[in-house]
């Protein structure tokens, strides 16, 4: 990549919520006593208040950081017209994994392009396990590489490490968009994700619902999926892309295949998949043509026969023998092993499956990493982990556990103002117009807006990752791979010392 021009990231464009009343953690009240002196507008660091024609408005209540505020308006108000309290709606949002704080901080990043400075816990959730029990250890007192410019911290990931004639592909940020199919989400959602991927020099996967023609202009940033239902898989779509992803299982529901409920099979979806309107679509759990690793090799050879230069990514869930699966995939010719853990999944994945089937990703990644190192092939294959990556800290943690990069999913939707209401599967009725194929609901969101939101969020991720790397004294994300010594598990931290 030496002779290529250094990639230029886009700038942040402030992109507020598309709804009139964005949800914030705190609620500010202004009483009649207000004299419109403008003091609050002056001192608020977050631009919560605005003054228009002599009247004060709480324009951005969601940006208020409440008690964390260094310069609180409610104390400074000369007439004590301001008071704050917790927004009662806020606690109803989300769940233990995606806490209201995480949701709000993701919205914040998507709006402003940086992590919230205060008021929100944006690093971890409250699930009591997984990433939420891991912490990155920064050396106390050390400033790391503070003097180095952010631009000199390398966060690119090389995806093709085999010495073959497939494309040399690298991504400018250590993450790309995971598969969400046309049918499960709207075309605007897909376009937002793919345009953001293009802007950030990375990729986004189509999922298994086919490759809509609208994506053609972004072909160099599309990963097309060959999944067990083979919906929408055609030679032309395979020929068009640089990366082909084989989906063997999804971490959120391994062993269950895919399902698209009848209500979501609108005429557009049916046309794309060649199915009947209104009937549910099933992807079988296995590839009926692949029951063994030599079948898998044949499968990979087939895709290479269609597109010899395509990179092959193998997406698997995390069974106990995931290490064997990974090394087998590598020997069969895969460039990327994509481990999909069980924390992800939209509302359409059954709750019982999400939490109970596969091995937690934080166990699977180091297991695979170590096994590949022992086999001596770790530097020949890219390991991408996904499934429940919510924050830049999750990214850093999983890379420290042994992945090269991550794959995002739900975080993208949250950036588009998903509120985790878990009704993705219920017909066409995504209240936020994200996971819908209903033509009317779809119009709730425009893809230009969506693109900006996603770009902002990922720029915030990148900035935060860079900060973490600098704190750890590393100049490249590659140095972090497999450095599980940079992590502690909260349950074992005492016994260790």
């Amino acid at each position, binding site marked *: 990549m030496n002779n290529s021009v250094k990639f230029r990231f886009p700038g942040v464009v402030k992109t507020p919520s598309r709804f009139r009343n964005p949800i914030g953690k705190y609620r500010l009240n202004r009483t009649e006593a207000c004299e419109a002196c403008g003091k609050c507008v002056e001192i608020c660091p977050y631009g919560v208040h605005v003054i228009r024609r002599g009247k004060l408005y709480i324009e951005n209540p969601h940006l208020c950081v409440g008690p964390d505020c260094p310069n609180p308006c409610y104390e400074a108000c000369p007439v004590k017209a301001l008071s704050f309290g917790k927004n009662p709606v806020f606690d109803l949002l989300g769940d233990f994994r995606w806490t209201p704080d995480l949701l709000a901080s993701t919205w914040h990043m998507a709006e402003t392009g940086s992590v919230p400075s205060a008021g929100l816990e944006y690093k971890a959730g409250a699930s009591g396990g997984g990433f939420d029990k891991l912490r990155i250890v920064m050396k106390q007192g050390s400033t790391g590489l503070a003097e180095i410019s952010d631009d000199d911290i390398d966060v690119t990931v090389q995806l093709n490490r085999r010495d073959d*004639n497939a494309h040399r592909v690298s991504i400018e940020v250590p993450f790309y968009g995971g598969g969400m199919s046309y049918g499960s989400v709207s075309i605007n959602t897909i376009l937002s994700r793919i345009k953001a991927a293009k802007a950030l020099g990375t990729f986004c996967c189509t999922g298994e619902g086919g490759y809509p023609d609208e994506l053609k202009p972004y072909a160099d940033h599309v990963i097309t999926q060959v999944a*067990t*239902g*083979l*919906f929408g*898989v*055609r*030679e*032309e779509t*395979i*020929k068009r892309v640089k990366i082909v992803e084989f989906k063997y299982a999804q971490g959120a529901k391994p062993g269950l295949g895919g399902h698209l409920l009848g209500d979501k099979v609108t005429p557009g979806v049916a046309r794309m*998949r*060649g*199915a*009947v309107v*209104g*009937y*549910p*679509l*099933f*992807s*079988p759990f296995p590839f*009926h*043509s692949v*029951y*063994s*690793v*030599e*079948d*898998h*090799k*044949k499968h990979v*050879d*087939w895709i*290479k*026969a*269609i*597109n*010899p230069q395509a990179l092959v990514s193998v997406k698997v869930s995390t069974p106990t*023998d995931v290490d*064997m*699966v990974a*090394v*087998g995939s590598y*020997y069969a010719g895969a460039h990327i092993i994509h481990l999909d853990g069980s924390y992800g999944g939209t509302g359409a994945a059954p709750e019982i499956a999400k939490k109970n089937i596969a091995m937690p990703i934080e166990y699977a990644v180091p297991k695979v990493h170590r096994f590949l190192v*022992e*086999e*001596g*092939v770790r530097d020949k294959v890219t390991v991408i982990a996904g499934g429940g990556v919510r924050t830049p800290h999750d990214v850093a943690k999983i890379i420290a556990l042994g992945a090269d990069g991550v794959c995002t999913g739900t975080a993208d939707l949250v950036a588009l103002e998903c509120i985790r209401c878990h009704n993705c599967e219920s017909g066409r009725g995504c209240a936020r117009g994200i996971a819908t194929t209903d033509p009317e609901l779809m119009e709730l969101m425009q893809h230009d807006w969506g693109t900006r939101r996603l770009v902002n969020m990922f720029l915030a991720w990148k900035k935060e990752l860079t900060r973490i790397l600098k704190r750890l004294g590393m100049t490249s994300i590659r140095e972090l791979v497999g450095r599980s010594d940079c992590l502690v598990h909260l349950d074992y931290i005492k016994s260790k010392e």
Partner: protein
Amino acid sequence: MSEYQHISNIITSRKHLVEDLPKRPCFETVAEGGCGVTGFACSIPVRGKHIFEPSRQMHNRGNGRGGGIAAMGFDYRMLGVSEDILEKDYILQIALLEDGVLDELERLFIKPFFKVDFSEALPHVEDYRDIPGLDVRPPDVWRFFVRVKPDVLKAFVDKNGFAALSQRQAEDEFVFQNSFKINKMFYEAAGRQRAFVLSHGRNFFILKIVGYAEKVVQYYKLDDFKAHIWIAHQRYPTKGRVWHPAGAHPFVGLNEALVHNGDFANYHSVAEYLRQKNLYPQFLTDTEVSALLFDLYSRTYGYPLEYVIEALAPTMERDFDKLPEEKQKIYRAIQTSHIHGSPDGPWFFIIARNNTENDRLELIGITDTAMLRPQVFALHDGQVQVGLVCSEKQAIDATLKSLSEEDPRVGTVADRYWNARGGSYTDGGAFVFGLEKNGSALERRLTCADKFGSIVSVPQDQIPYLPGRVYYMMEDEYRCRFDISRFFDLQIPDLLFAYVKDGIRLWDYADLMDCLKEIRAWALKGDAHFDVALKALTLLLDRRYPTYDKKRRSVVQMIGQTLDAMFRSFPSLMTQGEKGAYRKIDWETREFFRGPVYNEKVLIIDGSLFPPEGDNCDSRLMSEAYLRGWRRFIVFGLKGQRFHGCGFGPDSGGVRVDIYGSSGDYLASGIDGMTVHVHGNAQDQLGQIIKSGRLVIHGDVGQTFMYGAKGGEVYVMGNAAGRPLINAAGNPRVVINGTCLDYLAESFMAGDPLNGGGFVILNGVEFDNDGNIIPLETPYPGSNLFSLASGGAIFVRDPYRLIDDQQLNGGEVLQLKQRDWELILPMLEENERLFGISIENDLLMVKGERKNPLEVYRKVRPKQKDDISKDGLEEWED
């Protein structure tokens, strides 16, 4: 003492072997992986080199990190022992992984117990590095011919209460236990590994290496070593670093060697089950436990083979109900006792077994109940009989070709090829090739039977062709004998076809050969003549017609050779100054590659030397040629090369590909517009995601045919194996003239057939040996038809109303309507043109009577929507 006391005595006697072994909380395999398996049984002993070619051609099913072979039924002269010793002694074969371990092993486990009649170190190639591709030194192998000393055996019998066993049974058990002890002491899966027992049965041995299976033959110098049965296994372990071959297949029970393709999901529970019988896996692979299971059922419990197969692959669902009541009773008892030992998941076993009690050698193929692994059986009858079973048909063809090169009595084509239907009431999913002594141990008689003992046979009154014979002929007689010039002058291939077809009745092989030579001579006179010859010969190859006193396989072989010779005679692309429409390309001339010039139209690809996949394979070359402007392709000489027709991209209308030879997997997958004809049987995974175009298969087709297809017009002359058209959407239109094993059109989503959607016509007929159409016993034997389908339809030729509700899951059978008939009629007409299966005289004829199509065909379609919700599929109700 109960009648079965001896069984529990045997099991108890093994207790001391395993009680000190660690109780594993979880039995895990050390490596997983898939494989390719192949095996054949021959009525005469044949050389080891014949397992070489099929193994080599299945490289892509292994990764060179484990290979093994077993050979069974020897010529005693090759082993340096007397016939008597060969028959009666155990061949104890030990792999030594450490120097100097042999003395200790002999002192502890051989000398005290065995009378050694003969022992030797196996000869091998001096330096393993002389064999290309062999990176790990194969173990030194020591072979002992042994009998248990009488006093040792007596003590063993007394100690364990084996009085009820025959001497031989007790001796078998002693050998088995002794080998277990050897492995226990010298081989720990997790610890130090110094030596292990390869095999210890009678009249067979096993050899394994880290490398491809055929290297075993080279390294241990078995090229010229003769045996009746050979099986080989290409292993594909997912773990990369392997320094010794103990984990490679075959595995041994006592008198059986087992290879396996697949993977168990329930390894742990099978291992637990075996532990209850005091059996303990020592090599931690699922194949080992399979061999132990087989030995447990057959030797310890003394089950007949049928019951052993039932215990391994239980008969389920509708198939079970279809069994006779008597069998149901027994099978239910077997299933109740042994279901926990039944391997779950995809597997296919090939077993070489010395049935010592009946003095019979057996080659057995067993598929799992769900038929998740590919498998093909074949029978070649004649002076030399061969039974074959492989993962891919191309390996069968490769074996026959190799055999026929040495012995002309073997043809290059088998009499019959077929698939087993796992756990079924029809064939039980297993076939057994038995070799019985016929005068001498070296001239055996081969029979083939399914699980239930029904014999698979071929017409007995036909004689095969012997190429070695010399036919004399007068010079002038040659010229006027065949009056075929008019066919060429008038360009009428159909009549030439009819001429030869009719001629076969009166001609002998020599005449037929001459006629074919004559056709070939004509064909070389110009492109127009070649076209006639090609069409006529292709018809002769594809169509079924009576061959009278000649074997069809011989006729097919001769036609195939004629075609190959014709194809080979065309100039390559590097030849200058040729003006014909046909050009040939092969491995040697592939560098001289260019688009068509002048009136060049057809590219003939000699696939024989191309690799089966990858950057240099011929299918890649073909799609490259398409980009350069070629539109018409003939591919011949194939040996399982894959992916023909793939990679052409969208809108390949106007392209036509004809495939001759042993075509490979994934053929015509993803095609969009082109026409592909497969002349002969096809393999697995054909026509996946096919979007549009035409695919014609003049034979049978393998597993997961047209998986995820979106469209296309497809004709299959014979049967499809398991899982055809799963998850097909859009508008695929398919005629299958035979039947399918099971799971036809599961999750079919192809819209409304009357409104542009897709459908399958299942005719349920076959050709008899004279080329007449006869109905199958049932048009569809499987338990799952059109399961969970939401669109499309299946039109079944079912005049006797044999399709029942039990076979459907979410579908319903309807009376055919006139509109339906009008929809399928054009397809059937095309079917008639392609295969000669007449609508009026064959399909609508029921018991000699012409019926109304609406009475003959039935329609299966998805149950209407509200019916589905009534089906209880909805979990919650408001």
